[in-house]
């Protein structure tokens, strides 16, 4: 009986100590500037948008693409721009699990569409892996921004997948406006790095230490 009473008193003291520590940490947290998920989402969408638009401009200015080619690919670039923006937003936004599911399907359709609509294409003087390397390096910056945003949410595979797919659209847009090779090239040298970036986003996001576990 005595031991049970001791246990209860010890437990009560522990509970009080835990409460005091938690409340002290909360007070310290409240003194910090208030965080906003909207700012994280905006940061990701802007980083993504700036990369896609900046890259197209650079390719045009350096003569690596022509206005005619860009205009002829507008039908595939415009949906990628919209999907990339939506993906960036829904990767960070609370709720929206159904939207994320729909976006994964939309990204898969977009991948299929850029292969199907490419046709035979024209051979290039550059090695084919240049496209893969560009794809991966273009995704590195937005991937870092996305991981910062995802760190503030609970681990969620769909969320990380949508972030990875959205990041991959930057390279896909570069591939659309800067590469005129055939559909076989697109399927291997454009889609594989896109899928690889998505896998990296999922794996890194799963393993990183979270700042918050809110859904």
């Amino acid at each position, binding site marked *: 009986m005595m031991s049970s009473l001791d246990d*209860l008193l010890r437990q009560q003291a522990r509970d009080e100590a835990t*409460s005091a520590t938690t409340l002290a940490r*909360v007070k310290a947290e409240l003194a910090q500037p208030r*965080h*906003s998920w909207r700012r994280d989402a905006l940061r990701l969408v802007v980083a993504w948008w700036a990369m896609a638009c900046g890259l197209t401009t650079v390719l045009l200015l350096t003569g690596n693409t022509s206005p005619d080619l860009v205009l002829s690919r507008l039908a595939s670039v415009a949906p990628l721009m919209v999907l990339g923006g939506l993906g960036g937003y829904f990767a960070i936004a609370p*709720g929206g*699990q159904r939207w994320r599911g729909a976006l994964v399907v939309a990204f898969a359709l977009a991948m299929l569409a850029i292969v199907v609509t490419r046709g035979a294409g024209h051979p290039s003087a550059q090695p084919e892996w240049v496209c893969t390397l560009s794809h991966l390096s273009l995704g590195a910056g937005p991937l870092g921004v996305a991981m910062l945003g995802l760190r503030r949410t609970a681990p*969620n595979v769909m969320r990380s997948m949508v972030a990875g797919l959205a990041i991959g659209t930057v390279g896909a847009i570069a591939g659309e406006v800067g590469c005129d090779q055939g559909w076989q090239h697109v399927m291997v040298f454009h889609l594989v790095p896109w899928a690889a970036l998505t896998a990296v986003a999922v794996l890194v996001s799963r393993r990183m230490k979270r*700042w918050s*576990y809110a859904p």
Partner: protein
Amino acid sequence: MVTPTDELLMERFCRGDEASFDALYFRLAPQVKGFLTHMVRDRALAEDLVQTTFLSLVRSRDRYQIGSTVASWVFAIAANAARDALRHQRLKVEVSDDSQVDHGIEVPMGDPGLRTELEAAFAQLPPPQREAVLLHKVHGLTFEQIATALGTTSAAARIRAHRGYERLRALLSHLES
């Protein structure tokens, strides 16, 4: 005087009233601690996770959607934190001797033997089923609220809980005879 609801306290806290957080904490912390203790089966880890849960609530208060059930949202945070902690500790738990694990069982009430058997059976449930049974039976959440907490549909939450009950029944069948 009418006691403010959890939702009202959360709304006030989101608007900057720090005292509302204290009230919410003292109201929800015991339930969250009970849930986490059953989930991770380690009292010290559960206490750390209670802190993580409420820190996440504070840090991500702008992610709370005004009007939604606060308990479901807080249990969702707690379940996410527990799953992540379990994932990181899986290796450690696999190699440790189960008899040395602090099950975090409170002082036994009623038949201690029966309670120990129940706890052992509970520990054998897969985490998704354990979460659903705990939230439904112990914390009294509806399947809609459990669905919100676990990020799934109401039907899936019902199925998880049903499978959990079936498994518990099978594990404890020797007690019936």
